[in-house]
């Protein structure tokens, strides 16, 4: 016989103690719900404590903070409110018995537990794409890290991952890592980017100029060689269809390769209970309360879609908590008619997918290609917004009023030449 697993009981269990989960737990507690927050790290904050650069909180706190500062503000509020939380605690499984009966199974240093909950808010963040996923072959050597691993080593544990560095990917994360390495005295030998334009914000691209770091656009790293440790990486140029150009290969000597090739929402435990996933975002299909296709399972933050601003992540956490409150009170989330939101021209991803029309909503979207002098249009309701520039790297957030939403059965969002 197995020992009996202790059984706890809550209104809401929040999975993940990053900004999305903390904001959700705070809001749920403020709304009078009995809430438990779980995180597998030893500390709260998710990835924020390792993002020591400024650039967080301009919307949410109207102040420019570093990642750890943003996290500690949320953590302080959480503690003040007396929100129950457990760190070093890993959620293994969610069980969905019925709409108001879920069980979250987790292990913590004091043993295994299961917690009953009427609603679950899933805020487990994202995972990083690794070297194999982007087709890098070669020797099995040490010295290959994802950006997040390198950042944790450097900015949590104070350990330099290497001296001569090649970074794959020029998104914000790759660029910010380039600056951290350069500041700490490592030599960043190259940032290699597959696309013909840099992936990050202009303010972060400037970092390359600050430290004279070469940026190879339309190039990719294809191979790593070394004995025990990375010694050199092979780079090749690509054409406009991203095909490798024969004969354009060259080698760069380096002891470390950093993969910063994007994030993917972490949704394994949601898939296991049959939550419908949107192939464009990699996260769940949701309504305007951020409820997934499984009633009572809500999602927020990078598990919903990859956000570039922590402010939006916290906002989504609060929205999910409000949804959970409504769900618990009414035994479900009802809408007379869901209005479906569809992607039109130059829209790569769009969240939420269904709108009720009984509340104002923010739509989050990303375009597929960079464009200038454009208009965001929703033809069904005659909405038009001028935008001077749009870039895939910058998420757009637009507000729709309930009255606007109710005007149509379906809404198509497109970004077209003005």
């Amino acid at each position, binding site marked *: 016989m197995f020992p009996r697993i202790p059984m706890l009981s809550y209104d809401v269990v929040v999975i993940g103690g990053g900004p999305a989960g903390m904001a959700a737990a705070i809001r749920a507690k403020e709304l009078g719900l009995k809430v438990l927050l779980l995180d597998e790290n*030893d500390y709260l904050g998710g990835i924020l404590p390792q993002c020591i650069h400024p650039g967080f909180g301009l919307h949410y706190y109207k102040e420019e903070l570093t990642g750890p*500062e943003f996290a500690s503000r949320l953590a302080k509020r959480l503690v003040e409110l007396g929100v129950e939380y457990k760190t070093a605690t890993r959620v293994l499984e969610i069980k969905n018995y019925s709409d108001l009966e879920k069980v979250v199974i987790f292990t913590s240093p004091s043993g295994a537990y299961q917690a009953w909950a009427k609603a679950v808010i899933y805020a487990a963040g994202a995972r990083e794409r690794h070297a194999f996923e982007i087709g890098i072959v070669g020797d099995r050597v040490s010295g290959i890290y994802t950006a997040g691993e390198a950042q944790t080593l450097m900015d*949590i544990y*104070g350990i330099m991952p290497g001296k001569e560095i090649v970074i794959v990917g020029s998104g914000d994360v790759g660029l910010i890592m380039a600056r951290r390495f350069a500041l700490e005295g490592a030599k960043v030998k190259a940032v290699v980017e597959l696309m013909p334009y840099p992936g990050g914000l202009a303010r972060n691209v400037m970092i390359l*100029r600050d430290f004279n770091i070469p940026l190879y656009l339309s190039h990719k790293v294809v191979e790593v060689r070394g004995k025990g440790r990375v010694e050199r990486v092979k780079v090749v140029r690509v054409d406009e269809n991203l095909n490798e150009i024969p004969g354009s290969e060259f080698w760069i000597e380096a002891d470390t390769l950093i993969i910063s090739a994007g994030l993917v929402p972490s949704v394994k435990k949601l898939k296991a209970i049959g939550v419908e996933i949107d192939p464009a975002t990699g996260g769940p299909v949701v309504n305007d309360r951020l409820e997934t296709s499984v009633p009572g399972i809500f999602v927020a933050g990078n598990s919903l879609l990859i956000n570039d601003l922590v402010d939006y992540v916290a906002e989504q956490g609060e929205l999910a908590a409000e949804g959970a409150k409504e769900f618990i009170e009414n035994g479900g989330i009802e809408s007379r008619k869901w209005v479906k939101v569809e992607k039109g021209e130059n829209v790569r991803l769009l969240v939420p997918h269904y709108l009720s029309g009984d509340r104002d909503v923010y739509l989050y979207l990303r375009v597929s290609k960079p464009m200038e002098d454009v208009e965001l249009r929703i033809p069904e309701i005659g909405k038009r917004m001028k935008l001077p520039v749009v870039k895939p790297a910058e998420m757009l957030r637009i507000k729709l009023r309930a009255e606007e939403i109710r005007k149509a059965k379906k809404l198509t969002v497109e970004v077209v030449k003005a």
Partner: protein
Amino acid sequence: MIYRFTCIVCPLGCSIEVEMEDGKVKEVRGCTCPRGKEWAIQEVTNPKRVVMSVVPVEGGALPTVSVKTAEPVPKEKIPELMKFLSKLKLKAPVKVGETVAEWEGIKIVATRGA
């Protein structure tokens, strides 16, 4: 001498050109607002950055605390500042927002507690 860069003051991202002659700004082209112009001139004549790093801490929950300068530092002084920071060692408790050191009149502030 002409410097070209993308403005970072707001998301518009104007392409700015600053023309310099004998170490003086002659003309600024491409910006659409006065804030951008001011930034571009500062960027060419005296660029400054907020600097961040981590410092080892004894007796905390994590082995380091993160720190930042309370104000932007002239760019050419950054390597010197980094050398200063690399010699710092702290002891817990450290509070978020606490000044943990000072360098040439610039406060070094903890951004994580320990």
